[in-house]
């Protein structure tokens, strides 16, 4: 049977506030255990939560970013369960009245096509601490630095149909939240974690199958692998006539498998009820409009603008608009050199190539956008060829100076002196009598191919500096 996968994602996004959602403790990653845990975070008796206003602002920014309804009166609830790294014995979350309601979100797939994915809701909550099971000789250590870190849990509709779409959704989400500046999006540090709800149904069926939930997957690659693995597992069960059990599973990246978590943890009754220590969050039109006015251009808008304003293809626009820094860099290159298509090509191929190889983020590129733009300008004014430009770019990367300085110092300026080129053309023709003979004997079509040999020889002789256009013209004139 052909199976259709139905996937919904719950993304836990860490918001980039300096202090926690309900206390003044810092949220800096990597501090020594329990050095960022205040009396509130430790749930000392009599301590009370105070909502961080920046957290609300960030949630509203996200809601506006996906065109969602903003909850005008959202309510915090207590989600009750016992766990050693949950100091209060409950997590403050939002249940019935989340801050962000329904919205939609455009994602772009590898082939350049787009899809709208529904967002069910997004709500605010606090993170728990960490239980440390190693280094304590059979006992457990608790680190509460992370307890109270603000999270926005973003719940999608079951609109995704395969691993590639799920990854595209996550990448688009990552792009959006980093554009908005509401999260650092650092997945390695847990700033974006994902629960995957996945079920299968016969292709064409409209009813949903029984789902499994895979908890806490923290990279794009693992999401993809976990989904592929879970698809296989469920398909095997269904094809053997079995039934998928609704349960929570864990993806083990080392073994590349999902396995069932203890069912006890699934059967929790969280006894949600409104948190009496906090007032409902009331948001008015004025507040929303003030935030809307300050929203930056978002990835989707930018992508569309790149297509219409610069004439880029969907794929190029998608890559370049992926991060705000990259898009800004690209636009600065265009500004300097004036040719968006060549700029797009250079940024994607040469720049991103070297950045990836050096494992550098765009912000730490040794070559500034203006410098790259200046280099491209030298291609456009025929000072150097594209091939030479790559050499110059490598030198710029190594810190040897600006494009002009390197071209000057290395004597790479394109030779456009017709006398000099003519001498080289003559030399090549004289040294390759056999090829000339062949050429002259060939028909028009074949000549077009054979001429490349002579161009190559001239370029070689000129160490790549001869103006290729002039070489072609002179060859056409002489090879008769």
């Amino acid at each position, binding site marked *: 049977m052909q199976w259709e996968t139905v996937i919904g994602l719950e993304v836990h996004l860490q918001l980039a506030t300096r202090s926690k959602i309900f206390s003044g403790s810092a949220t800096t990653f990597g501090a020594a255990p329990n050095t960022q845990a205040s*009396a509130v975070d*430790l*749930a*000392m*008796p*009599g*301590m*009370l*939560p*105070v*909502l961080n206003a920046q957290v609300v602002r960030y949630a509203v920014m996200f809601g506006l970013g996906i065109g969602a309804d903003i909850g005008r009166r959202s309510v915090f609830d*207590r989600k*009750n369960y*016992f766990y*050693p790294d949950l*100091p*209060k*014995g*409950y997590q403050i979350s939002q249940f019935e009245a989340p801050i962000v309601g329904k919205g939609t979100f455009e994602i772009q797939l590898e082939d350049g096509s787009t899809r709208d994915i529904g967002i069910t809701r997004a709500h605010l909550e606090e993170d728990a601490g960490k239980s440390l099971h190693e280094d304590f000789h059979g006992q457990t250590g*608790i680190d509460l630095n992370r307890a109270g870190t603000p999270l926005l849990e973003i719940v999608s509709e079951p609109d995704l149909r395969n691993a590639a779409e799920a990854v595209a959704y996550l990448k688009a989400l990552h792009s959006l939240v980093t554009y908005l500046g509401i999260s650092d999006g650092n997945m390695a540090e847990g700033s974006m974690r994902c629960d995957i709800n996945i079920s299968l149904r016969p292709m064409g069926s409209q009813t949903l199958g029984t789902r499994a939930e895979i908890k806490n997957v923290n990279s794009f690659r693992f999401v993809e692998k976990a989904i592929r693995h879970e698809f296989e597992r469920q398909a095997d069960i269904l094809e053997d006539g079995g039934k998928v059990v609704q349960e929570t599973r864990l993806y083990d990246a080392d073994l590349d498998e999902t396995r069932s978590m203890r069912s006890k943890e699934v059967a929790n*009754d969280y*006894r*949600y*009820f409104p948190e*009496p*220590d*906090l*007032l409902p969050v009331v948001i008015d039109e004025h507040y929303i409009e003030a935030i809307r006015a300050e929203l930056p251009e978002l990835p989707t808008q930018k992508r569309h603008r790149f297509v219409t304003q610069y004439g880029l293809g969907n794929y190029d626009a998608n890559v370049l608009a992926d991060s705000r820094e990259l898009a800004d860099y690209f636009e600065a290159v265009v500004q300097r050199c004036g040719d968006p298509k060549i700029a797009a090509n250079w940024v994607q191929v040469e720049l991103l190539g070297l950045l990836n190889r050096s494992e550098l983020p765009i912000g730490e590129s040794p070559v500034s956008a203006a410098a790259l733009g200046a280099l491209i300008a030298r291609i456009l004014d025929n000072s150097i060829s594209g091939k030479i430009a790559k050499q110059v770019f490598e030198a710029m990367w190594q810190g040897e100076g600006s494009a002009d300085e390197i071209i000057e110092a290395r004597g790479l300026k394109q030779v456009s002196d017709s006398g000099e080129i003519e001498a080289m053309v003559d030399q090549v023709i004289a040294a390759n009598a056999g090829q000339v003979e062949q050429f002259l004997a060939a028909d028009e079509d074949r000549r077009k191919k054979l001429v490349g040999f002579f161009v190559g020889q001239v370029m070689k002789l000129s160490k790549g500096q001869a103006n290729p256009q002039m070489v072609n013209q002179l060859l056409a004139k002489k090879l008769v």
Partner: protein
Amino acid sequence: MHDKSVAQLIAGLRDRHFSSVEISRCFLDRIARLDSTYNSFITVDEDAVLASAAAADTRIAAGEAAPLTGVPIAHKDIFCTNGMRTSCGSRMLDNFTPPYDATIIRRFNEEGAIILGKTGMDEFAMGSSNETSYYGPVRNPWDTNLVPGGSSGGSAAAVAAMLAPAATGTDTGGSIRQPAAFCGITGIKPTYGRVSRLGMVAFASSLDQAGPMAYTAEDCALLLNAMAGHDPLDSTSSEVPAEDYCAGLQEKLQGLRIGLPRQYFDDGLDAATARRIEAALKEFEAQGAHLVEVDLPHSQLSIPAYYVIAPAEASTNLSRFDGVRYGHRCENPADLHDLYTRTREEGFGDEVKRRILVGTYALSAGYYDAYYKKAQQVRRLIKQDFIDCFDQVDVIAGPTTPGPAFALGAKSDDPLAMYLEDIYTLAVNLAGLPGMSLPAGEVDGKPVGLQLIGPHFAEARLLNAAHQFQQATNWHLQRPASANGEVA
């Protein structure tokens, strides 16, 4: 000196008739001599008291005294005190010393008031008789066979026995007013949000409110001046500016409209108590107030609503006591489950466990709508009853309790009978209103409390009415013989 009011102590300190050290020594001596009878204090740190008193005297000498500088005040052991054990009357916190002060403690410290000690209470403020404390029952100074009321029974008994000139309490369903009534003193539960809850161990977050207890309304006003006000660290604390609660005490009551809810004078009210209340109301009438019968049609629902909402909130507020970070932890836990169950089994008493179970049940899947949600709907109706009443009257008056203090052990095996003790006080918490109790006579030597209830933030009006009543009567001047007999 021990029978002076706070107002008199302030005047005496200002006029250098005595020093804070002298006052403090006087009360410390009385506690040392008498409290073995009442058991009203859990913790007293004599050295700390005397050091604070000496500092207060220095401040007074320098002419930098705030109103309460040098005045010793006892605090219910529910308020966290930096460096001083805060037990909440529970084995769970018997070993707990907070590294911070509750906001109200900080405010009293800033005024230069002296922390005289921490008073006994029902465990986690759950009780109406002070019999559920890990530290044993507190006894009523008027008759040591009687309960002092609860949960702020230690504070009430300490003030009544003149072991402290004034005390703080907390009131979730009557825990200031009922013990004030039983012990013949005055106590006020302010409007919800008037006094910060930060650093006050939570029982039921949407109902808890701290307030002062003393012999007179004027003393309560003096203490409330220090306690009331917005606290940015308590999100439920009100931004309505606090008033000077002493400023209006002298206003006459001519024309004051006093509502008498018919439901507060029904068959459930002890006949002798009713007569004392009626006599007290006549005094208000004599001062020019008008008595108007009013209706609180949903008041009989306050007990079921309260005993769903309060335990529900308590059940999760008390989840933090898990033996992991502070407080009691069982010996040698075998695993996590054992750590939780044995720690909580050992650390909590029966009444606390009962309420955790009731509250957990009320919030459970499948029961939430029938219990918690329904109780919240009832709560809104009860609040609306009061709002409607206050269209017709300025204050509401009635008994604080159905009868005077009962004997120790009389109701401790019957939770429902015990819960009925709060029938006239619970609705005030559910509606978030200010309410107070003041001495209004006695029945067979047992004090009777008159309750006054006001609209939101009308503390000043209640204190004014109580003060005017106390100017014309002397019920608040009565002292229990057991405490008087020991006058040095």
